[in-house]
């Protein structure tokens, strides 16, 4: 694989993407929405309640206690309001992790189906690019803005959440080891998987608009997957998390192979030109 060619595709795609107002607003707007609007609208109303007036209700089950006492050293002394806020913060963090699934659906539509829509694919296929170079380039050009957007959102989210929750926990919640694993391992893998699925969709649609619609169908199973991974960690073990990462890696490799077949010239000239 010639990395120079891959780099050329990535540079070209990013240049094109950032000249599109739609893509630019999605790449900037979505992280802002997920990182600022969601925590403020869900956590802040709970934070705003006077601690003395807060009614905690029943105690959390033991496995919650076991799990969160590892995350918050003073879990037992944290009041019910603080405990609910901690749990909700983790749940909302999962929402932030939807960015690496949703953003590539937008960026990949632009870079792959956009080539088909604007009839630039044939010139690309007529060049000496190999199928693997083309797929790698396309994955990276969709992956970079999505991972950057996710990292930006995660940092802002962590900042806002920590500021809101610190008075209740007296310790910083994010970015802890778990959220870092999600940010730097799970999110990039989901991003890659999302782009690979969009490549498969590209053979079935003729316009970027159609791709957005069909792309939302890709997002759904991936959302289920991320929820499954989170649940596997919370309720089973670290080994389950490692297993989930291994499954993600395998899926990425399988779909990479399928995606390179999509760019087989003979097939691509019929489906993508």
């Amino acid at each position: 694989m010639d990395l120079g060619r891959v780099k050329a595709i990535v540079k070209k795609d990013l240049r094109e993407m950032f000249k599109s107002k739609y893509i630019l607003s999605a790449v900037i707007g979505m992280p802002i929405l997920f990182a600022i609007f969601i925590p403020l609208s869900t956590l802040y109303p709970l934070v705003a309640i006077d601690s003395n007036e807060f009614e905690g209700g029943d105690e959390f089950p033991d496995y919650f206690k076991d799990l969160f006492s590892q995350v918050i050293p003073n879990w037992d002394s944290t009041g019910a309001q603080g405990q609910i806020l901690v749990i909700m913060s983790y749940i909302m963090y999962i929402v932030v992790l939807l960015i690496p699934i949703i953003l590539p659906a937008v960026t990949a539509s632009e870079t792959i189906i956009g080539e088909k829509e604007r009839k630039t694919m044939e010139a690309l296929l007529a060049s000496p690019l190999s199928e693997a170079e083309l797929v790698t380039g396309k994955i990276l050009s969709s992956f970079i803005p999505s991972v950057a957007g996710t990292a930006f959102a995660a940092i802002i989210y962590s900042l806002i959440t920590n500021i809101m929750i610190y008075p209740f926990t007296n310790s910083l919640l994010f970015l802890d080891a778990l959220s870092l694993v999600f940010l730097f391992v799970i999110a990039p893998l989901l991003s890659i998987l999302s782009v690979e699925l969009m490549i498969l969709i590209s053979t079935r649609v003729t316009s970027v608009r159609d791709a957005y619609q069909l792309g939302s169908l890709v997002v759904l199973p991936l959302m289920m997957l991320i929820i499954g991974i989170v649940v596997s960690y919370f309720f089973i073990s670290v080994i389950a998390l490692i297993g989930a990462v291994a499954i993600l890696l395998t899926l990425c490799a399988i779909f990479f192979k399928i995606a390179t077949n999509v760019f087989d010239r003979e097939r691509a000239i019929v489906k993508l030109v």
Partner: protein
Amino acid sequence: MLAVETKNLTKMFHKLKAVDGLNLEIKEAEIYSLLGPNGSGKTTTVRMLTGLLRPTIGGARVLGLDISDNLQEIRSRVGHLTETPALYERLTVRQNLDFFAKLYKVPETEIKPRIEEIVDLFELPEKLDEPAGTLSKGMKQKVAIARAMFHEPELIFLDEPTASLSPESAKVIREQIIKLVKKEKRTFFICTHNLSEAERLSSRVGIINHGRLVAQGSPGELREMRKDETVTVFRFSTWESNTKEFFADMKIEIVEQNQEQKYVSVIIKDIEKQTPSIINSLTKNNFQLVEVKHEFPTLERIYLEFVELEGVPREENNMEES
């Protein structure tokens, strides 16, 4: 070495034979034009030669390399102008050229000077930093041709290169093609509908219809094949009522007569021998002859005859010319 050599090159899409047993031999530094109606198999032929489609039967060698197992090398050594300019419209002309230069591994130090050089050749310098989307159709086509030639390929496939160009721009392109053939021994394979251009530019032309090569040769050779169809026009200052009888008596076939325009078009079997004697007879018989003109068959007429002989061109199909 031949630049292109095909042997029984055939491509089938299900039951449709898009290209049917094509045998071509194109020499280096030749300009070869493939003429044919829409859906005749031109684009499929080029797509096979550039490794975008695999032949169903037969094979080909491009620059001496077998197309079945040297695709990447072939792609890196040929240039390909597709039917549409296919530029990245949000990028500038410079960025478009720079991107393809990198795909074709043009050395980094050569890219900038070569961009400057090629935009000068195609008269585009003031548009270099403009987004490609703001250019006119003709300018986009020029940029696309410049892109196909940018990595200095030995063989260049051009699909309808001057279709959307103004006469002046088409002239610039033709001049560049001729210059590259003469000075740098490049080979051009041109698919076109523009018959007068093919006639002016090409050393040889091939006429393809229904995927089959129905005629091939230099424009002169093709004309020679149809020399018996040369029409001779006699124009008079006054029209005589016995003109038709005069030519009938001489056993000369009249193709057309026009009393208003005062001319008659005939087919003379032996032009060299018979024309002077016909002129003599006309003068002796007091016909007021003003002009005698031989109309040799044009490439357009020859092309239309071959295409019509082969039947009505089939409908454009979505695998072809798309």
